[in-house]
């Protein structure tokens, strides 16, 4: 196989770029097929996260006071900062795709590196938020504490901002459900970020060696779709988890 391609590589790819697979008519058709397939994958992801969003909406509708009290434990400032970080990372990723398309190797490496750093920044901020939940025993299943919800004044920082009334024990119990969904949704999102950052690291190394800037941009373009999709999921998580329960 190696031998054959070495001998015939030149003639077999006569008249078209070497990255064009022979079962496609043109590079355009090949790029369209890859983009379409990537979108099919993203639609399965829509359904996957859709299940979590549906569960959130149903339980929110059922145990509204518990969900309001639970979401008051989230800090809108951290959430907003993370949204800004992620939107900027989507922009740098989009610029990376443009650099690949216009064959700018340095620009591509810079864009991917900035995206990588912003992705890590997002996870860093998420860690700060998670740590606070751990300290307050708001992680479901791990010595979960109802104190902040049965006696809101024991949690002075949150009380000063929202003046929550104490919940009855049966409703306070359901804040654990809120935090289960919070950790499940933001955790699945963070897992997607970690996978994305891993692939970004791989792409930065390849891009430094000159890959993606010689006409074949499919990998960068499709990774961009993935990264933007993860950004969209966060846009909805931010609205649902942080913003819509500020008033009771």
């Amino acid at each position, binding site marked *: 196989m190696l031998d054959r391609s070495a001998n015939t590589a030149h003639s077999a790819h006569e008249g078209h770029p070497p990255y064009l697979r022979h079962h496609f008519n043109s590079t355009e058709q090949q790029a369209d097929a890859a983009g379409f397939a990537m979108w099919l994958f993203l639609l399965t992801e829509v359904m996957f996260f859709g299940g979590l969003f549906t569960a959130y909406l149903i339980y929110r509708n059922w145990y509204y006071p518990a969900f309001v009290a639970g979401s008051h434990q989230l800090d809108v400032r951290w959430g907003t900062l993370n949204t800004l970080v992620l939107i900027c990372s989507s922009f740098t990723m*989009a610029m990376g795709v443009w650099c690949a398309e216009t064959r700018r190797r340095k620009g591509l490496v810079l864009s991917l590196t900035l995206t990588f750093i912003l992705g890590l920044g997002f996870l860093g901020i998420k860690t700060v938020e998670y740590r606070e939940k751990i300290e307050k025993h708001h992680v479901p299943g791990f010595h979960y504490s109802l104190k902040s919800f049965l006696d809101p004044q024991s949690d002075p920082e949150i009380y000063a901002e929202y003046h929550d009334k104490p919940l009855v024990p049966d409703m306070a119990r359901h804040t654990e459900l809120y935090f289960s969904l919070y950790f499940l949704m933001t955790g699945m999102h963070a897992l997607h970020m970690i996978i994305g950052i891993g692939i970004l690291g791989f792409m930065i190394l390849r891009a430094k060696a000159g890959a993606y800037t010689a006409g074949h941009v499919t990998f960068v373009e499709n990774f961009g779709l993935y990264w933007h999709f993860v950004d969209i999921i966060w846009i909805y998580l931010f609205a649902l988890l942080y913003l819509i329960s500020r008033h009771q």
Partner: protein
Amino acid sequence: MSEHNEHAHHIVGPGVYVAILFALLIGTGLTVWASFLELGLWNPVIALAIATTKAVLVVLFFMHVKYSTKLTKLAIFSGIFMFLVLISMTLADYISRAWGSW
């Protein structure tokens, strides 16, 4: 089939990306600001409307769907539509059944 080729390699430039970036940043500011207002039922409606506007901008421009093939557009539309059918049927069932007895 070959008439699609002229659309296949549309390159979206930095100008568009910068404009979308600013639109998204403004959208984020707007949605945080709106969450501080006392609007009752309208708070979630406005938050989700702004989130959806931001998502549409990302899909159309960052993800180049505005310039992609009709097949891709149709697939995305069908997928989102199917998701909305599933979520609204499920929610309609849960909301209308055993009202108030949970």
